[in-house]
């Protein structure tokens, strides 16, 4: 069987090279793996992305948080990486495994003895004493192993080129009790992973190391542990 089949050009990238490409992206731009509120990440740098704290009434400066993702390891169909039973890698899909660390700045809050004034909920406390950031009471973190399955999306990179992005369809965290807590964390990480991976737009040019111009007609599609595309010159 020819590689090009009925088209003039063929290109494929094996999952090992795709993982190298993802490693290159996250190594050069690690801020796409680390997100935190100002107590953790005061400003956005190459290494970290600064995000607002979670505002909550009565919590000065909001709830401080940080999410640190590991570089995902991707397995393209056919499956070679074990998955938890809740997930199945179907034809045309990828699976991914990564470590995630969730951290909160857990503080003891002091109750202000003065009566609350209406309309101050959610605002910065202006009653004196509690407007200074509380000292870090305890950094509370947990590490999770996260599995995901998803599919490819044909997108446009920031350079205007044809590109692919990894779209997450489902996330699974193993062995968290109760199940409802597991579901909440899975939902949280489902949203985070979708957003993070949507930013990783890999130009098709890179998937074929710049060889032979290709206007996609078939694909990009996942099969035989590769991303394949066929098209015209």
């Amino acid at each position, binding site marked *: 069987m020819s590689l090009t089949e009925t088209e003039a050009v063929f290109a494929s990238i094996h999952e090992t090279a795709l993982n190298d490409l993802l490693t290159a992206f996250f190594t050069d731009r690690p801020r796409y793996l680390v997100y935190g509120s100002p107590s953790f990440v005061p400003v956005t740098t190459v290494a970290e992305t600064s995000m607002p704290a979670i505002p909550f009434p009565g919590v000065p400066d909001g709830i401080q948080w940080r999410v640190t993702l590991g570089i995902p390891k991707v397995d393209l169909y056919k499956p070679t990486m074990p998955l938890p039973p809740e997930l199945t890698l179907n034809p045309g899909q990828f699976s991914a495994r990564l470590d995630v660390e969730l951290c909160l700045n857990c503080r003891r809050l002091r109750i202000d003895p003065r009566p609350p004034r209406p309309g101050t909920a959610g605002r910065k406390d202006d009653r004196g004493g509690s407007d200074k950031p509380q000292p870090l009471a305890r950094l509370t973190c947990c590490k999770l192993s996260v599995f995901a399955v998803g599919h490819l999306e044909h997108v446009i990179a920031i350079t205007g080129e044809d590109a692919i992005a990894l779209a997450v369809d489902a996330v699974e965290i193993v062995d968290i009790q109760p199940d409802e807590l597991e579901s909440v964390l899975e939902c949280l990480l489902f949203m985070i992973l979708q957003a993070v991976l949507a930013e990783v737009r890999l130009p098709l040019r890179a998937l074929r190391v710049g*060889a032979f111009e290709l206007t996609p007609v078939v694909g990009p599609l996942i099969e035989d542990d590769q991303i394949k595309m066929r098209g015209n010159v």
Partner: protein
Amino acid sequence: MSEIIAALDEKGANKLLDTAIAEMDPFYREGEGNLGPFVAGYNITAKLTNGDVDLIPPGTIRIVDLEVDWSMELSFGLDLSSILPELCLPEICIDIPCVGTVCTPSICLDWQPVTISLPFSDHLKTTVDLQLAINLDGGQWKVEAVVLAVPELQLGPASTALLAAIAAAATPILLMVPFIGPFLAMAVDAIIALIAIAGATGFLGPIITPFISGLRIELYSQPQVFEVLPATSAVDPKVDFVIDAVAAEVQHNAPEDELVLTADISA
């Protein structure tokens, strides 16, 4: 298994070579060559046009009907006395009464050398076999199709055309030579006869053959440190990876022959 594979069928290879050959700068050279018994100076510009690509496993790209179009300016000096008979006015003597015999001197004309200059354009088609050459040079991966054997160029028609062009160019130049009228046709015929097809072929061959025999057609060229994404801000630097290895071959993947390039990369 190679990490990255890119392949072209013959139709795709044809387009690739169309583009690669069209983007090549025109060839230019100048010098002197033997045009029969004459030494002719020339400058020549040549351009190639792709023909039909035939991929032949495991590593040959054959281009059938590769076209070479060239235009040339050439000039050579001609000593007419070497091809025309000596033209002399004979001595004439007259007997004059009381004076005696008076004779005019014999006068011979020297044929002045002339320079024949002409532009000449033509083309030829040839078939060349190219082989794949892969190099990492100065941090740049290159795959080129390189002509290894010197092709046999069919220069007969071009040589005939060159002789006709020389004849056409010589006529007005010779017409300016005094007293040549009766000898014009003889002079032109003599020049053409001296050069002959063999002389024209011997002149064109060494000039045009190197354009083909030294041909290198670039099929792939990328830096070893391959840029995936450019830097877009101070917090989003460029993203790149390293191309560790590149290979290329012609494969028969039934029912097609394909030009296949493979690469391995690392972060």
